[in-house]
């Protein structure tokens, strides 16, 4: 029996995870649908946990304290940046990027709106990367046409106090 020689490249079997046949259930979609309705009246609705008082915005059906948030409370439209990043090519800290990620520069930040204890992610407009810092105050910027979409609340501008 000839000594076994080893190939570097052996056949590959093709396969998949047909995730299109999976479907998930979310109470949160129903809760956020109510919040999205309120967007049309330019209102932000968070859900307060009876167990520990935390306010989730956008709303969430369960809390880390194992309570089930059940009281709608209005959340302010000013907030604080808790974390951020920039997409697209840009010049920062003096380093000019010849080739960098495609797309025009965008500042994406996590915003904690006053009156809530959670973060939601927004694109910060009317600001340059150098101006952004954790703790920066921002103001929600509604789109011209508010259709009650989740990304109606995805834009903010620096707060002029």
């Amino acid at each position: 029996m000839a000594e076994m020689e080893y190939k570097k490249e052996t056949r590959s079997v093709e396969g998949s995870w047909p995730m299109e046949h999976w479907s998930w259930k979310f109470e949160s979609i129903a809760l956020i649908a109510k919040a999205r309705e309120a967007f049309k009246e330019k209102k932000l609705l968070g859900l307060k946990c009876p167990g520990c008082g935390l306010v989730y915005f956008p709303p969430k059906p369960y809390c880390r304290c194992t309570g089930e948030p059940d009281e709608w409370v209005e959340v302010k439209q000013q907030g604080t940046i808790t974390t951020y990043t920039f997409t697209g090519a840009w010049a920062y800290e003096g380093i000019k990027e010849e080739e960098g990620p495609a797309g025009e520069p965008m500042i994406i930040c996590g915003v904690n709106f006053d009156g809530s204890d959670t973060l939601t992610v927004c694109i910060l407009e009317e600001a340059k990367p150098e101006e952004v810092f954790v703790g920066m105050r921002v103001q929600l910027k509604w789109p011209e046409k508010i259709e009650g979409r989740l990304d109606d609340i995805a834009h903010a501008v620096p707060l002029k106090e």
Partner: protein
Amino acid sequence: MGPGIEIGQVPRASLPINPTFQWSVGNWMDRFYDGLKEGKLWASKCPGCGRVHLPPRMVCERCFTKCEEWVELPETGTVQSYTVAHVKVGANGEFEELPQPEVIALVKQDGADTCVAARLEGGNASVGMKVKVVIDPEAENFVNMLAGYRPAE
């Protein structure tokens, strides 16, 4: 849900995304498929305890020895178990009726110590029945080159 909240029917969401994979079969299965290309059944043999694996395995699990010995097995084998299938699993994971029943058998090739799961032609089957392997070197998917078995007569 809390008193102030009633959800009614819980909403659902899904996504038309299917991650794909490409599993390298390794040198033992690659040699198995090379053999089938020439109409041969190559099985790995354990130098430690003599167990013969078909499909071949790099390591004999019984004595944890690398199986670098090979044996070519005859086309005949014995049905260890079988099932008459009335359904198959559809792409969505649910059962679909088969147009007519087909037999799936676990066959131990003469000289092998492990089994191959494959279709058994001819409709009637019994445990201990003698069968012959059907090899299709031109199978569309190489995993089906060992196409199945038919009664040995």
